[in-house]
């Protein structure tokens, strides 16, 4: 009996298959080089490479794990579920106090403040300082415009995905180079040593 990953949503498929007919996204490849592109919401005609239209990928044999949105947001933006909850729970309902948000979500007040500032750092919220009648200031956090938020999160994720794809490609090249140069030595150690921990 196999062990189940407790982080996986119940009932989630174990793998996801690329379906070029789904229209959710498209993957294209160049028949003449290694260029592969991911297109979301593209318009016809498809992009070209070497002055020729790229070819839509219609099959992929490797099994892919379905992404979990919470893990994606954490990995790509360093935004845990609490941060997303804070971002989502009050859209259209403000102004709310940080205490009200904390009570509504069941988080500590300090957690709310911490993630409000994290959301500002990521670029999903803006912060303004307002004067208090008794002196000093209060911070007001407000969302960026929704269209801008859509653009920033999508492009931000593409940058993250590009970094991940570059790592995978680097790993493939490293493996090829190593096998060519060291045919009689163990591959795993040298392979991981080429990706030192931070």
């Amino acid at each position, binding site marked *: 009996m196999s062990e189940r990953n407790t982080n996986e949503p119940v009932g989630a498929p174990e793998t996801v298959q690329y379906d070029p007919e789904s229209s959710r996204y498209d993957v294209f490849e160049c028949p003449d080089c290694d260029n592969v592109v991911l297109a979301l919401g593209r318009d016809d005609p498809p992009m070209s490479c070497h002055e020729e239209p790229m070819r839509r990928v219609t099959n992929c044999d490797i099994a892919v794990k379905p992404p979990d949105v919470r893990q994606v947001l954490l990995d790509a933006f360093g935004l845990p579920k609490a941060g997303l909850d804070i971002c989502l729970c009050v859209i259209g309902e403000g102004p709310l*106090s*940080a205490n009200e948000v904390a009570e509504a979500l069941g988080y500590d*007040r300090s957690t709310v403040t911490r993630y409000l500032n994290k959301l500002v750092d990521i670029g999903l919220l803006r912060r303004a300082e307002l004067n208090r009648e008794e002196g*000093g*200031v209060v911070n007001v956090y407000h969302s960026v415009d929704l269209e801008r938020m859509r653009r920033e999160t999508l492009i931000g994720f593409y940058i993250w995905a590009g970094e991940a794809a570059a790592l995978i490609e680097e790993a493939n090249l490293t493996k090829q180079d190593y096998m060519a140069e060291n045919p009689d030595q163990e591959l795993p150690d040298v392979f991981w040593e080429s990706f030192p921990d931070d």
Partner: protein
Amino acid sequence: MSVLRRDVLAELGSRSDADAGTWASVEVVADSLALGEQTVRDHLAGLESCELARTAPDGTARITVTGEELLALDIDEMMIVDSKTTDRGCAGGADL
């Protein structure tokens, strides 16, 4: 159409003044928004917790300087007011 807390703040802002110390009747604010007085009082309590409004025992309320500055930002999107920070320039708050 439901009336949001920000609508109550805007109405209060048009009927009171922080600098002049002008207060508005909750009843008048409620009538102008076609709301019950208790609904307005509930919104005012929330605005007071954000330091955006003040209420008095005599049934009047006024916007604060903070509330006026918030309206001047002309923000339609989500807003959270974190009043824990008291010193200008310490945007991260005491928790960080």
